[in-house]
């Protein structure tokens, strides 16, 4: 982890709702893996004449590492970005996603959020011939997927958060990664776990991971604002996350 600076090199609208930013970053970030994030602040030419509103860094999950020093992030189209904008970055933050060794089928679930934080894993999994199904639930159903790889199977859930062949999909998947809307993560993960437990007698360890994207005040394990209670222990989202086994996370 380092504190470095970057430029927004290019701003590219990829579909109705999303734009992608190509960031010219410090080379140390080119080794960033799926699951790791950047803590980003827009800065000005003079590092000292900083404004303090907004105060905290934003948590950006890259969707692609393009070349040795270009990292791509996805943002809603309505956010205003200008090429040449300077960024201050702390990263990489967090641990890479850990996939089963013999992963063949993976299920991705996005509920009340953009699935952007799950997209970084796609290229390497597709190269390894892993079959990927992405379920969009709640407001995530509005997410425009036109720009995503064709090999990806995309399913939009119905109003009851179910989809055809749900039991089958859940059995088919070797591993599940779920991401949910900010602010009520534990509640949303609880809903998802309920859905799954209704359709699968036994949810084994390391089967379903919840990806946390709560804002991180420090990102380095200092402030303890991101503590999560797990069965028998406490973990930090910034240091130990973002993915946590949903069978161990206390979802209260």
């Amino acid at each position, binding site marked *: 982890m380092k504190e470095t600076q970057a430029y927004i090199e290019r701003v590219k609208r990829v579909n109705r709702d999303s734009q992608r930013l190509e960031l010219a970053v410090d*080379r140390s970030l080119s080794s960033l893996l799926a699951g790791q994030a950047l803590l980003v602040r827009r800065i000005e030419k003079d*590092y000292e004449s900083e404004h*303090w509103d907004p105060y905290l860094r934003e948590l950006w999950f890259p969707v692609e590492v393009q070349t040795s020093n270009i990292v791509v992030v996805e943002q809603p189209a309505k956010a205003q970005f200008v090429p040449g904008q300077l960024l201050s970055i702390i990263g990489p933050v967090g641990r890479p996603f850990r996939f089963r060794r013999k992963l063949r089928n993976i299920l991705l679930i996005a509920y009340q959020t953009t699935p952007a934080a799950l997209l970084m894993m796609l290229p390497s999994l597709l190269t390894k011939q892993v079959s990927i199904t992405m379920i969009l639930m709640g407001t995530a159903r509005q997410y425009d997927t036109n720009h995503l790889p064709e090999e990806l199977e995309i399913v939009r859930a119905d109003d009851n958060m179910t989809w055809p062949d749900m039991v089958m999909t859940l059995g088919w998947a070797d591993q599940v990664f779920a991401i949910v809307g900010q602010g009520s993560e534990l509640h949303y993960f609880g809903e998802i776990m309920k859905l799954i437990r209704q359709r699968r007698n036994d949810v084994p360890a390391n089967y379903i991971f919840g990806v946390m994207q709560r804002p991180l005040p420090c990102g*380095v394990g*200092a402030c303890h604002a991101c503590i999560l209670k797990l069965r028998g222990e*406490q973990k930090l989202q910034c240091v130990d996350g973002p993915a946590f086994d949903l069978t161990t996370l206390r979802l209260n």
Partner: protein
Amino acid sequence: MAIEITRPGKYSLVLSTPVLPAAGAVGFGDSYKALVDYDKLGAIVTNPVTVEARSPASGTRMIALDAGILLHTGLPNPGLVKLIRQQRKVWAKMPVPVILHLAATSVGQLRRGCAILDEVEEIAAVELGLADDMEVADAVRLVKSARMEKPLLARLPFYECYQLAEPIADAGADALVMTAAPRGTARDPNTGRLVSGRIYGPLMKPMILRMVGRLRRQIDEDVPIIGSGGVHSPQDARDYIDAGAVAVQVDTATWVQPKMLERIARDLGGWIATRHKNAFLDEWNPDMGHTEAIERRVSSDIAGDAN
């Protein structure tokens, strides 16, 4: 430099730089080792510790405010004895003194805590955190009961600072830290509920700077004051020193810009380097540059939809 940040005497604490992180800012040990050169700081102050273990607050812990944040962590910690066991080796390796922040709960717990800490040589001093809404008499009793063979700093609550400063100095505190972040209330945009917690942001500085300036003229001049609140730049730190503080604590600014903590420390510690003309932004202090290669942007032709 050699700055005595506590009352002169048998157990005084001398630092080489008058800049410290505040309790809560950098964790219990070396969380910031990848981002901050600890060697350049005056000392480390740990997150608050209690004699008994404390579990984290449940519910919302952080709310973004206009130019600030509200934070309510519940001061999670494994309890003093366990923490010492966990962190002792890290503290021993720290290049600067470690000040342990002990949350003042009861006289009994405080006495136990002080007895334990007197045996921990990796800890150079103790900062006592006094709770909000405390009666003056209770606060004085706590400070008096916290006797050790180490310097004792007392961190005063914000709203009670004017009333507590003199009695706490008289009760024997070796330095006063002004102040802890004030408590406040804000609405959690996610749940719609009002949440209480501590308020951080640059606007704290003018209020606490005034406290430091006024109280410096009131209390026994043997008792150093350490300014804490809204230090976000070297100039902020210098303002506290000008107002009579002997040192400053840097709080949440560390999270927003970790290098800023180091830069403030370098600046006040006399380490400031000249900025080269045309230097990259983070080459301000040339030896602090971290960005290995920013390729200049090649095109600005593809602009975002700015409508």
